[in-house]
């Protein structure tokens, strides 16, 4: 049942959206009202038990590990807030129907309102800290959307963002606080937490936790210095201001203080933090309210001030202060909501909210004016109205505190009276400025009485003000009692809800406040001058300035870091690798192992020297691209020799073919680079880069040295040597590793090759920008394609293909294999394109390289799949020996098919890349694909 109280509006939020779109406004309003009424009815239905002192609880586990569960409790406090939320909610819904203009999207408004209502109900009913937080944030979010409801207005957008920023920041602090609290109390369930008061207060984490939670509460309830968002939230439609920003949402903070009262309150820290903040807010906002010219601004600051009052009362921590606080929550919600609605009516009827222009409205709207004045009187604390009662209780509490001694003694009642004076003064201003004080000035239109439905909610609320004010004990008494009981967490001391307590100090203070306020208002001109000279600080401007400064700073920093310089990113990458590598290696161990180094012969030394030379020159002349490529060829060749020297013919062959293919590729790619010399970088940059490069080189050398001076771990090698022939059917272990032991890697790399070919094709046909270059001079065919080259290339093709076939076939047993054979074939084919007319050669060869590589890849995959047919894992190899008359004994191995796939992939992919790169060259000369 409890779940539904919150769930009905949350789910019901969809109804007005649906109704607003299709049906009229009235359907929209009635569905919304019905949803709210359902929640209210549920509450009322459950309330008798609560009045008997029972705490209703319900729980459904949701995320026990996180500590977040759907647990709800309905006690006095929750009931009180629930009734306020749904009750005032109903009135606001009615009010909004007539307040909002025809062109405003009523469906969206009501949906958001219901969303908010559900969140608020969920929050007050939550019996789990995290659940409470969840709904808490939901109220912030829905408030954001509601403030920004008239989103074409800049002030609405700013106000909404500011409200969200402040309350969300508070929400995050609250999250941290709750987590700490839950950690300390051992549970997030309120029932457990509320019982752990002593443990919590004695825990060393208590101060931090308290401050975090208070941050959350104070931002939400607009306590100084976080109050500044609330006046700007008044950009929202007035029903929203009345509902969220005076009656309910801003009470969430004080609700939280009340809710956690048994756990957190009654410590010195609590007293000073909560009481102090409340007091400052009370005074400051009351003072600021007086100087507002905007009707809603005045009400907003007055709301802040009253929230400060409630906070102060809760800070005082005595049970009677709590009673007063809770009482004032009710009273304030009632009279402030009605005042906002009245202000809305005035705004609605006149199109103006400036109290310097709004004068003398009484004679135009006497009935509304009477209602507003009554509510304002309640705000000022005039007897026979509800505000008087709670204010009197407040004064009594300050006196009690003073009498109890302590450091603050007489200051508290004094300041309370001062706040009362201000409060009376701004209430007087509200009444006198708007309804009397001469004639209206330059109003957009002269008001007349609003439609009765717009006024009805105000009438209801003012009636409550009067009823409570006159007969408190019979109206609000029981509710107040159970609410305060559940806050205090124990029986309440006796108190009397009467209007007349005899002549005493609080009465004197009330009278002083009334008289002082009237005097102050009378002398307002002088005061306004003072206010103009020393205006209250503008929180919004400070906030905006701070935020803009912050954003500018993050922009500078971000753009400074992410400056689009590839050189910098690379330097960072290599630098980080270097620093990290060194830091890692520094932590112990030795660089040099115990493997002795083999002797060095002169020729190897010479080759090494040549390697160093060519490498160095390549680096030095890398800007002269062609020279660099030639030198790179030299580097590659020496590496090939090194491989041969150290008995790895397979590697040597691979390196060799790769080397030549690379040369051709680089020559083709040169076309895509600007031919002009690049600008030299600054000397400092060059120094940095050189240093990094040298250090990185040393680093890699050190790693290699470390590996080389250690004995090989022989296990894998021995296994491969032993198993290659019997298990893999090949004597060439390198090849068996490639196509069998680690055939899956080869499959992967073959795929990489295909992807590269596809990628290059896609990139180049996608219009990769070519640098502009003068085309080569037009020359004779003979000079373009020399006869000797053309004729020489053809036998070369046959020869190379033959070699490739040879290399391929023997690969399983002797150095060679599909990869090398494929590269050789590709080179032979490339030579044909190179030697003759590109067009002609393309036509003659007529090979679809895409299908070739696709087919190769398919063959690899297929070979792997066959084994699966026999129940073996993917890529399991098989071989057998066969005999043919002429060829003699030979071996058939599945690895052969695999290797053929590799061959096809290599030929297809390399040719594809070469031709794609070369095509641009050819196209420049008028060739069309």
């Amino acid at each position, binding site marked *: 049942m409890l779940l539904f109280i919150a769930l009905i509006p949350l789910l019901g939020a969809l109804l007005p959206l649906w109704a607003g779109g299709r049906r009229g406004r009235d359907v929209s309003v009635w569905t919304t009202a019905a949803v709210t009424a359902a929640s209210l009815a549920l509450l009322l239905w459950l309330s008798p038990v609560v009045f008997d002192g029972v705490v209703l609880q319900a729980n459904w586990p949701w995320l026990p590990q996180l500590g977040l569960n759907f647990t709800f409790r309905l006690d006095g406090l929750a009931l009180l807030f629930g009734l306020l939320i749904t009750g005032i909610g109903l009135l606001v819904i009615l009010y909004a129907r007539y307040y909002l203009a025809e062109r405003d999207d009523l469906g969206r408004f009501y949906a958001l309102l219901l969303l908010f209502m559900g969140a608020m109900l969920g929050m007050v009913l939550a019996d789990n800290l995290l659940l409470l937080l969840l709904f808490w944030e939901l109220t912030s979010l829905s408030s954001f959307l509601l403030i920004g409801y008239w989103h074409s207005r800049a002030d609405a957008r700013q106000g909404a963002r500011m409200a969200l920023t402040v309350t969300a920041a508070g929400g995050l602090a609250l999250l941290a606080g709750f987590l700490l609290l839950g950690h300390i109390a051992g549970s997030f369930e309120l029932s457990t937490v509320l019982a752990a008061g002593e443990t919590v207060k004695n825990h060393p984490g208590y101060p931090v936790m308290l401050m975090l939670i208070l941050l959350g509460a104070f931002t939400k309830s607009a306590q100084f210095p976080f109050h500044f968002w609330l006046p700007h939230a008044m950009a929202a439609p007035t029903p929203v201001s009345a509902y969220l920003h005076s009656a309910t949402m801003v009470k969430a903070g004080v609700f939280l203080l009340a809710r956690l009262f048994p756990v957190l309150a009654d410590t010195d820290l609590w007293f000073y933090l909560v009481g102090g903040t409340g007091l400052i807010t009370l005074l400051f906002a009351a003072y600021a309210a007086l100087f507002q010219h905007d009707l809603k601004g005045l009400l907003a600051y007055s709301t802040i001030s009253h929230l400060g009052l409630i906070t102060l009362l809760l800070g005082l921590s005595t049970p009677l202060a709590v009673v007063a606080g809770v009482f004032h929550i009710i009273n304030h919600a009632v009279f402030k909501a009605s005042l906002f609605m009245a202000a809305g009516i005035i705004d609605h009827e006149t199109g103006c909210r400036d109290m310097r222009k709004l004068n003398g409205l009484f004679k135009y709207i006497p009935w509304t004016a009477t209602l507003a004045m009554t509510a304002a009187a309640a705000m000022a604390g005039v007897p026979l109205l509800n505000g008087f009662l709670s204010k009197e209780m407040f004064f009594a509490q300050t006196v009690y505190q003073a009498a109890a001694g302590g450091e603050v003694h007489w200051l508290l009642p004094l300041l309370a009276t001062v706040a009362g004076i201000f409060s009376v003064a701004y209430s007087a201003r509200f009444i006198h400025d708007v309804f009397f004080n001469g004639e209206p000035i330059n109003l957009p239109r002269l008001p007349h009485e609003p439609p009765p439905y717009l006024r009805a909610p105000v009438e209801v609320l003012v009636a409550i003000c009067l009823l409570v004010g006159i007969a408190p004990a019979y109206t609000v008494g029981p509710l107040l009692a159970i609410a305060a009981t559940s806050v205090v967490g124990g029986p309440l001391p006796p108190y009397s809800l009467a209007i007349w307590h005899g002549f005493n100090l609080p009465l004197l203070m009330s009278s002083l406040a009334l008289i002082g306020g009237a005097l102050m208002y009378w002398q307002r001109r002088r005061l306004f001058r003072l206010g103009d000279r020393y205006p209250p600080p503008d929180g919004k401007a400070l906030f905006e300035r701070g935020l803009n400064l912050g954003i500018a700073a993050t922009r500078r920093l971000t753009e400074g870091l992410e400056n689009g310089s590839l050189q910098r990113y690379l330097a960072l*990458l290599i630098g980080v690798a270097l620093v990290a590598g060194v830091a890692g290696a520094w932590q*112990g161990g030795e660089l040099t192992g115990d493997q002795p180094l083999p002797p060095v012969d002169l020729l190897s030394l010479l080759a090494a020297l040549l390697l160093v030379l060519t490498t160095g020159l390549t680096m030095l002349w890398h800007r002269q691209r062609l020279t660099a490529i030639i030198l790179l060829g030299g580097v590659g060749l020496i590496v090939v020799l090194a491989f041969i020297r150290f008995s790895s013919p397979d590697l040597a062959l691979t390196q060799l073919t790769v080397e030549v293919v690379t040369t051709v590729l680089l020559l083709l790619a040169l076309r895509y680079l600007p031919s002009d010399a690049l600008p030299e970088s600054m000397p400092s940059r060059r120094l940095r880069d050189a240093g990094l490069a040298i250090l990185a080189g040393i680093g890699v050398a050190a790693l290699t040295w*470390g590996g080389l001076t250690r004995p090989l771990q022989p*296990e894998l090698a021995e296994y491969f040597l032993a198993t290659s022939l019997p298990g*893999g059917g090949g004597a060439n272990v390198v090849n068996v590793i490639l196509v069998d032991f680690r055939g899956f890697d080869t499959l992967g790399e073959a795929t990489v090759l295909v992807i590269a070919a596809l990628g290059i094709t896609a990139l180049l046909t996608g219009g990769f920008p070519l640098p502009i270059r003068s085309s080569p001079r037009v020359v004779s065919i003979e000079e373009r394609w020399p006869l000797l080259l053309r004729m020489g290339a053809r036998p070369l093709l046959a020869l190379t293909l033959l070699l490739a076939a040879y290399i391929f076939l023997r690969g399983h047993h002797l150095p060679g294999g599909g990869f090398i054979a494929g590269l050789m074939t590709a080179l032979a084919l490339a030579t044909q394109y190179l030697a003759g007319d590109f067009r002609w050669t393309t036509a003659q060869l007529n090979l679809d390289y895409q299908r070739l590589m696709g087919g190769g890849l398919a063959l690899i995959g297929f070979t792997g799949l066959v084994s699966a047919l026999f129940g073996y894992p993917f890529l399991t190899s098989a071989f057998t020996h066969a005999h043919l008359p002429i060829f003699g004994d030979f071996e058939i191995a599945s690895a052969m098919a695999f290797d053929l796939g590799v061959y096809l992939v290599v030929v297809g992919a390399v040719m594809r890349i070469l031709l794609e790169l070369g095509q641009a060259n050819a196209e420049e000369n008028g060739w069309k694909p």
Partner: protein
Amino acid sequence: MNHALILPILLPFLAGISLLFLKTSSMLTRRLSLMATVALVPLAVLLLILAGDGGYRVYLLGHWPAPFGIVLMLDRLSALLLLLTALVATPALWYAVATDGDRQGRYFHPLFQFQLMGLNGAFLTGDLFNLFVFFEILLMASYSLLLHGGGRERVRAGLHYVILNLTGSALFLIAIGTLYGLTGALNLAELAVRIAAAPESDAGLLRAAAVLLLVVFGLKAAVLPLYFWLPAAYAHTSAPVAALFALLTKVGVYAMIRVFTLAFGLEMNAWLLPLGLATLIAGGMGVLASRELRRLIAYSVIVSVGTLLTGIGLDTVAGLSAILVYLAHTTLITAGMFLLADLIVDQRGHTENWPAPPVAQLRLLSGLFFMGAIALAGLPPLSGFLGKTLLLQAASSTPALPWVWLIVLGSSLLVIVALSRMGSRLFWNMQDVATTAVPVSVRRWWPAAALLAAGPLLMILGQPLTDFATATARQLLSPSGYMAAVLATRDLTVLGASL
């Protein structure tokens, strides 16, 4: 041996090959590509159920026993990431097809399939060098996908990505070479055993290699001094690719978790926690500094990486399980946001300009944006809250508590501020003119909506998800089971099969 293990690799592989024989982006191509991608979802679910029993599934490729051949290895973590891949890939691909994005260049579909192959392979392999190979596959495909469609900015940012990652690959090889030279092992389980047994004199070099791996994975994951390639690249590539790339940084994170929990143990955490926190700060500031939506989301990717690293760095079951929950959330939501951003730009023009004409589907787009923003910012009641709060709780019993809380919550605030500014700018600050944009059909917006639905869904399914994540974290932090499962195959005596 369960052949289902190889299917997540084989399916996109074969699909990719088949697509090579079809016309680029013809109807048939699209259908085949979509089918192959959608099929990954039930497959991944199957594997998830399989892995859910807490066991390890080993697949010996070529029937060679570990550590001699290559093994695939399925545990909870792999299964989780496989499922995420499938869940992101399907809507992304659909979106590409629905918006004709696949026709803006050649070979979109085969490249997409090979990308999936690389991702799935990286998540499944149990071999360090094979991991390198799959990194190559996924990187090579990602290079092309990133540049798909061309355009000056895209090519520029994309080339940075390509060159940096090529350098990263070189570093990866150096690290693998060093490790192999010292231990003689490539199989991860074997490597772990060897490293544990390595003599003290090898410790420095081994650590250097490990740290190099960290740098490589950190580059992929986009960690603080190495992430600068990401914002521009992600902001300028096409939307479906950006959505898919929401996964790509997670590969780096995955590799860190996998390799470090298995082979290097506790040592790496001293590095990861401060790195993660620093990345979080930088990412949060980047989010706030972003002038346009795509870049903002790109920076939120960096925020998520920072969060993930922080969680790994805590080195507790709670921390690891928290970020696994977060991982699922951030991947899906970020991907959804990238798609949504495209829809928004489509209807109102570039997000850097305002006020702009109103979008045609205000409620739909702003609703989705609001949902995504809440999830991204980690506010309740959506999924971001779950992961973030779990992480905060995990940190609460460690000495790092104040830092983690301050920075995680602080960056959340930056994200909230940035998103509220962006959202109000996009949907509230509009020119007072009638929209000229054409509303899009459900065909185009469901992918974004489906991904963003993860926000509420992961929250509703929070408990099973958290349970799974906790079990995964337990499994990861007691790697002996993994080693035992893989190395048990050593005694397999069957050598090849004769016909």
